[in-house]
């Protein structure tokens, strides 16, 4: 009888240890690192210059668009150990103007940048860059959230072709449909917008939080 109890106890201990090991493995995989920039270089990517109609324009670039392209290239060139393929940028277009800011889409085979500048200016350009495919498949659009000089919320995002409208969800729970023009959604609002949602060309629902950092 004592031996049976010992065996049962040992068996329970083995099962318990097994469960702990499985839980640890599950916890680790659930907390895994994302792919580093450049780590998925071998997988197919939807090039920003193909995914955004605004970047496919054959029109000559304006001086301001040239300045935005140069500025974004400079940000990537000075940015530490960014892989070479993510530094290549080939196209730039003014995609909209919002409350005193000009907004540019700047893209290459693997990177998509949004560049902002004071309206009509070739200087004072800030830059944010994401990578394909997530920046161009509708899952993680590149954008910015901040404030206008008078304290209203400022939101802007670049969205790929096929997403023609987004729904803005306000802090009070109301929603409002907003059109996407030239791959850009931009808004300024006194009432904070909590999130933007949309439906991609594949039917999947996308969402991005617009709460400030």
């Amino acid at each position, binding site marked *: 009888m004592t031996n049976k109890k010992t065996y049962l106890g040992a068996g329970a201990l083995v099962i318990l240890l097994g469960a702990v090991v499985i839980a640890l493995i599950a916890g680790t995989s659930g*907390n895994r690192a994302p*792919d580093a920039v450049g780590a998925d270089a071998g997988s197919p990517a939807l090039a920003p210059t193909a995914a955004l109609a605004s970047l496919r324009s054959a029109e000559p670039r304006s001086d301001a668009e040239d300045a935005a392209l140069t500025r974004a290239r400079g*940000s990537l060139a000075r940015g530490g150990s960014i892989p070479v393929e993510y530094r290549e940028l080939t196209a730039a277009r003014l995609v909209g103007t919002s409350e005193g800011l000009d907004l540019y889409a700047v893209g290459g085979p693997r990177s998509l940048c949004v560049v902002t500048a004071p309206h009509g200016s070739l200087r004072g*350009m800030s830059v944010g860059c994401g990578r394909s495919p997530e920046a161009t498949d509708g899952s993680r659009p590149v954008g*910015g959230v*901040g*404030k206008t000089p008078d304290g209203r919320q400022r939101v802007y995002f670049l969205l790929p072709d096929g997403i023609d409208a987004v729904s803005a969800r306000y802090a009070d729970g109301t929603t409002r449909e907003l059109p996407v023009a030239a791959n850009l959604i931009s808004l300024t609002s006194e009432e904070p917008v909590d999130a933007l949602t949309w439906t991609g060309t594949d039917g999947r629902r996308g969402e991005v939080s617009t709460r400030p950092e």
Partner: protein
Amino acid sequence: MSVAIVAAPSADAYVHSWSCYRYSTNDCSDTTGTTYNPWLEVLATSGYSVYHICAEGVTAAGNQRSTIDGVICNVNTFVRDSCLISTSPDSQGKVHWTDSSYGFTIQLQANAYTAPSSAC
């Protein structure tokens, strides 16, 4: 612990470069050399595309310097290059990131520039 390199490419240009491994929301500030400078530009990059990557200047009084576009952090990016509204008052470069999905450190690399060397 951050790693910093102070470079003075010419008499009229001043650049600080620094880097850190940081968890989400933890600051990576420029802490070497002359800490507060007339920065006009702060550039942050990471090896990962994250929900927020942020680059800013903070004054000795702890105030966040305004950027020209009113934005400190870009969304879903691995680069944020901020142009500050002016070089005054002096500020300390600070970069950081957030992403609720990731519970590990990532390396942030940063540069801050005074007006003569800045593209802003």
